[in-house]
Structures are given as structure tokens and as C-alpha cells.
């Protein structure tokens, strides 16, 4: 956080006033398309990844110009907060490029990595499940955390504690989120990783609940971050500023997050990548953060496809070359009950390879709904770390040419794992082995895959 937070607050009451309808139907779409055309940013639908350094620099320039011209729309005051080029460039110049998350033996330091670097992107696994049964929730977390390739986790929202529901805008939500924190800490201790990075408070949906969750200290500045994410399409509200200020006051790392929806108000992945850069620069200004989670999705409800992976790679490469911030993207497909979904296993691998060759530092929610799927994501990220962009694209194109089998119905954890030992049952191990063989044939390798 720096002087630009105070400037943002000031300008939110003095900037140009505009209806939100005009902002979203005329103002920002026109500017965005103009900068896209000016910088000749084009996506070829046959290309799943953007590897061109020149275009990456163009995406960055377009994103910078888009932010400077559009500004951030403050939903509370209906005014536009604008920054000068000098202010943004100073925020970029003074940004922190290395951050440490977690503590003790589990501490990880995210530092800039270029495509093909030996250092693999860190993999943060989904931990927990959408349930009110805290013990089951914890078992899911333990199954993920016990995996050797678990570099951290992102909790799944806890829906309640038994009969106590996760009720928005009440202390129940804070208590449920604190139960999430307790379960994460206990699972990490069980897994022998007490200093593990535990992501963000996911069971809390309001700023008050998120901030209150930090009260008892189970989530703290060593093991957790605080989301200060920008709202869709260049919008902010005062909640963002309060969260950024709270993070700063407590020494908590802000979790900067940009998740544009393609085909909503954005025409495609080119505009998505430009907007991610503009969002990041905007968040950098008002939060002084560093850690950036950036991913797009389609308004049609998917997280996979050439458009999605191209957008994520274009933004990541633009950031790697021009910002050097710790960059995190989505490491799975969001498929419910993904254990026996071939699409989920392939697309998880694809996301990991994309991260490696696009210069990303980490993947969040890497893997699927079980620990062994998380293992898969962690291993692929390590196996693919040194791939050149050309090698990575070749594998990704081979994956995309595959016609996936239909996804079967989801199975609960107890059907997939022995709940006493928390070890995967043979059927899911066989699924894992199948994919280790497929990916060895595609040219990747990892030490444990040799038993396949």
C-alpha cells in the first residue's frame, strides 16, 4: 500500500462522474478495442498458447494505456479514478518481485521465473470440500496436503459446521471461516507440514468476515493472504480499499486477483489478456501488492479451450517480461467429481505445462477433487518446468487433438480413498498410472512415473 491508495480514495470523490451503464456499454469497451487494434493484438484460434515475446510486450503496453485512459470505475461514487503514467510506472518500479509464503521448512519464495526455467511453478492444491461436515472437510485437506508435491493449498469453501450454516453478513460466517482455518492448520500438522501456505480465507465472502477471520491468529501473515481483488471490467468499490488497508496494517500479503469473463463485455482472449494487465496495474496502485492471481473464464461457463489458455499465457508472458510479479493462474478445470474425468486430467496437465512455458510462478487450485489428482498436477508442473515454449506447445496441441471420454458421475471421497489410511483406492491409482504412461509417451518424465 502506498500513497496511491489515498489518491484513489480522493479521486473517487473528484473524478469524472458517469453512469455505470455508460461505462460498461460504451466507455471501456471502446477504449479497450481501440488499444487492441492499435497494438495489433490478434489471436489465432488454432493456437492454445501465446509465446511471442513481441506480442507479450504489446499486450503490456495496451494494458497500461487501457488503464490510463479508462481508469477504475468506483461503484460507490459513480466516478472514475484515474492515475498518471508516472504514478503507475513508479508503482511498477517499486513493486516487490520476491515474496515468501508459508514458514519454516514449508516456506516457499516466489521469484521471477522465465519460460523454461529450472524452477518449477509452485502448485497449490484445493483442500477441503463443499460440505458442512468438518471432519470430512479435513480429510479432503489431509489427502491433498500429504502429497509430496504440495507446495501450499487453497481451501474449498466450508458450507457450515454441522447444523450451523455459513450465513452471510453474520458472525456465523466468521466462525465457519475460522473453522476452515483450524481444519487447515490441523491437516497441515497431520501431514507434517505445519508451516504450509494456506492460501486465502475461502469460506468468507464479505470483507468483514474475511478480516475478522484473522482475529484468532489461525490464519496469519505467515500462512495466509487477503483477497483485494478488482471487480469485473475495471471496477472497484470501497471494500477493495478497506481490504487493502487492513492487509497493509497487519503485514498480510494482498492477494491481487483478476478474473475477466470472456464473451461478456470482452470480445475474446486478446481483450482478456489486455484487461488482466490493466487490472493488475490498477491493483498494484491501490494495494501495493505483489502476488497476482490471473485467469480468465468464458461466460459460457468453461475454464478450458484454446481461447482460455491463450489469454492466460498472453497475460502471464506480458507480466513476466514487463512486471516480474509472482504470477499465479488456474491449475485445473473446475470439473465437479473430476477423479475419473479424462478431460480433467488432460486439462490439468495442460494448465501446468502452460504455466511452465509462459513464465508463471505458481498454480492455484492445481489438481482436482482428490489428493491423487493434486499429486498429478504437482508432478506435471515439475516434469514440464524446463520445457521450451516450442516443446510445450507441441505437447499441448497433441492434448487438444484428443477426443476426451465423457465425464462420469462424481464419486464421494470414501469411494475413492480408504478413509482410515487416507490412501487412494486401486481404481483411482490405475487412473493416475494411465496418465503417467500417456504423458511419458508425450515426452515428459518424473521419477515416480517409472513404476507405471
Amino acid at each position, binding site marked *: 500500500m502506498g500513497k496511491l491508495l489515498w489518491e484513489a480514495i480522493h479521486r473517487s470523490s473528484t473524478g469524472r462522474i458517469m453512469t455505470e451503464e455508460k461505462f460498461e456499454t460504451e466507455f471501456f469497451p471502446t477504449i479497450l478495442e481501440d488499444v487492441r487494434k492499435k497494438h495489433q493484438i490478434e489471436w489465432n484460434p488454432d493456437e492454445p498458447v501465446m509465446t511471442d515475446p513481441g506480442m507479450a510486450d504489446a499486450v503490456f503496453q495496451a494494458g497500461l494505456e487501457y488503464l490510463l485512459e479508462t481508469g477504475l470505475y468506483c461503484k460507490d461514487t459513480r466516478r472514475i479514478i484515474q492515475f498518471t503514467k508516472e504514478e503507475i510506472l513508479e508503482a511498477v518500479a517499486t513493486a516487490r518481485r520476491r515474496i515468501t509464503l508459508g514458514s519454516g521448512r514449508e516456506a516457499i519464495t516466489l521469484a521471477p521465473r522465465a519460460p523454461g526455467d529450472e524452477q518449477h511453478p509452485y502448485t497449490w492444491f484445493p483442500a477441503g470440500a*463443499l460440505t458442512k461436515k468438518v471432519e470430512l472437510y479435513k480429510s479432503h485437506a489431509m489427502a491433498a496436503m500429504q502429497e509430496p508435491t504440495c507446495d501450499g493449498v487453497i481451501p474449498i469453501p466450508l458450507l457450515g459446521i454441522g447444523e450451523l450454516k455459513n450465513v452471510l453478513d453474520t458472525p456465523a460466517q466468521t466462525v465457519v471461516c475460522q473453522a476452515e482455518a483450524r481444519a487447515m492448520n490441523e491437516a497441515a500438522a497431520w501431514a507434517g507440514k505445519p508451516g504450509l501456505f494456506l492460501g486465502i480465507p475461502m469460506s468468507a465472502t464479505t470483507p468483514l468476515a474475511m478480516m475478522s477471520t484473522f482475529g484468532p491468529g489461525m490464519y496469519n501473515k505467515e500462512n495466509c493472504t487477503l483477497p483485494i481483488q478488482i471487480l469485473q471490467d475495471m471496477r472497484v468499490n470501497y471494500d477493495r480499499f478497506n481490504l487493502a488497508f487492513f492487509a497493509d496494517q497487519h503485514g498480510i500479503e494482498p492477494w491481487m486477483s483478476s478474473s475477466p469473463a470472456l464473451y*461478456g*463485455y470482452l470480445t475474446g482472449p486478446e481483450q482478456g489478456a489486455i484487461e488482466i494487465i490493466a487490472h493488475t496495474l490498477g491493483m498494484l496502485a491501490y494495494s501495493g501488492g505483489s502476488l497476482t492471481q490471473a485467469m480468465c473464464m468464458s461466460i459460457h461457463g468453461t475454464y478450458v479451450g484454446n481461447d482460455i489458455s491463450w489469454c492466460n499465457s498472453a497475460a502471464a508472458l506480458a507480466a513476466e517480461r514487463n512486471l516480474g510479479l509472482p504470477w499465479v493462474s488456474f491449475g485445473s478445470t473446475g470439473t465437479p467429481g473430476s477423479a475419473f474425468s479424462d478431460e480433467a486430467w488432460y486439462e490439468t496437465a495442460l494448465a501446468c505445462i502452460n504455466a511452465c512455458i509462459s513464465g508463471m510462478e505458481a498454480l492455484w487450485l492445481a489438481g482436482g477433487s482428490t489428493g491423487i489428482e493434486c499429486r498429478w498436477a504437482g508432478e506435471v508442473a515439475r516434469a514440464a518446468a524446463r520445457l521450451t515454449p516450442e516443446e510445450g506447445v507441441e505437447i499441448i496441441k497433441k492434448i487438444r487433438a484428443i477426443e476426451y471420454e465423457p465425464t462420469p458421475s462424481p464419486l464421494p471421497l470414501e469411494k475413492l480413498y480408504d478413509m482410515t489410511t487416507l490412501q487412494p483406492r486401486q481404481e483411482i491409482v490405475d487412473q493416475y498410472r494411465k496418465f503417467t504412461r500417456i504423458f511419458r509417451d508425450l515426452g515428459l518424465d518424473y521419477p515416480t512415473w517409472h513404476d507405471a
Partner: protein
Amino acid sequence: MATIADLRQKVSETQPKPAEAVTRELLAEGFDPIEILEEGVMSGLNDVGNRFAAKKAIVLDLVRAGVTAKTCIPLIEEALPRGETPKNKKKVVLGTLLSQHNIGKNLVGTLLSIGGFEVVDMGEKNAPWDFYETAEKSGADMIAVSVVFAPALEKFSELLGLLEETDVRTKYPVIVGGGVTTQKWATEQGADGWGAQAKDGVDLARSILGIGS
């Protein structure tokens, strides 16, 4: 000489001023206002909706098509002989449950308005009670709910429970849609209808409230 096909094209291309000009010309030439509305405006809107379903248009195109249609509709309404207004007198309370997302909700509102419904738009970040209170105060015929993030799923069930508890569940059919919802989930909750796309909202409202299209 303008044709209804020209109007359909202008709406489909989301060009408000040319669409308005063509509408005026058609009315001046004596075309049937109902035909202008249905074959020109609504068909143009459907074209954009179909392009969106085929992933060849974006939500912004749908919104702009709605804006285009709204420039034409008042002119058409003025030209309708008294008693033939296409308004169906049915009132729909519409809002987003909990979250601040409004793209889908706005779109449903636009299409419902164009479809002849009176829309009471509650905006975003609504609690279950807000829906109940607004429906009661406005004399609504139906409640339409946008659910776009996971925590709102449970709130939807709370809304249906609240309507039961206040003895108005049968008075207000409830339809739902949004990114995190599915037909299966909506059926399990006891919703009266679920829509995958914005245009489904109009079809559901017509069907449930017994209005011919």
C-alpha cells in the same frame, strides 16, 4: 422503401439510430405495428441471441441489441390502436441474490420488458427478504432470481422457505438462473422454473403465467 427485414437487420446489427429511423419509416408507410414488433424487433433480437448461443456474439451485443430494441418499441407502442398494447400486465420482480454481478440479470430484465412484462428490477446484492418485500409491495406475479456464486445457492433455498413461511409461496412462482445453477439443482430446490440462458426467462414467465407468445 424500408422493409421489416431491414429493421430486423438493424436490430441484429445493434444500430439504435438506423433501427429507429427504419421503424419510423415502416410506421409511416402503414405497416402493422404488431408485425413490426414481432418480425422486425423481436426477430432481430432472436438473431443476436442465436449468435450468442453459437458463441458468435458476446453479452455486450445482447445488451446493445436490447438498447436498440428499446429505441424502437416506444414508437411502435404509440402506433398501436388503443387496447392492443402488447403489454401483458404481468409484473416480475427481478434481482441478483447476494452478489454484485448483474450482466445476466440485466439481460433477463431487458428481454422481459421487451416481451411485454413489467419488470421491477431490484438490482444486485439482495437478501431473500428483499425479494419477498418487493414482491408484496409491488403486487408482483412472479419472482425471477439470478444466482451467480456458490454462497447464494443456499440463500435461494432460504428464499423459498421464507415464501412458504409467509404463506405466499403459491402466490409467486419463482424462476432462477445464473452461472452456478443447474436444472437438477433448481428442481431439487423446488423452483418453478430454471433457465440456462436469458431468453429462457421470457419463455418460462410466459409459460408459467399462462401468456401466449
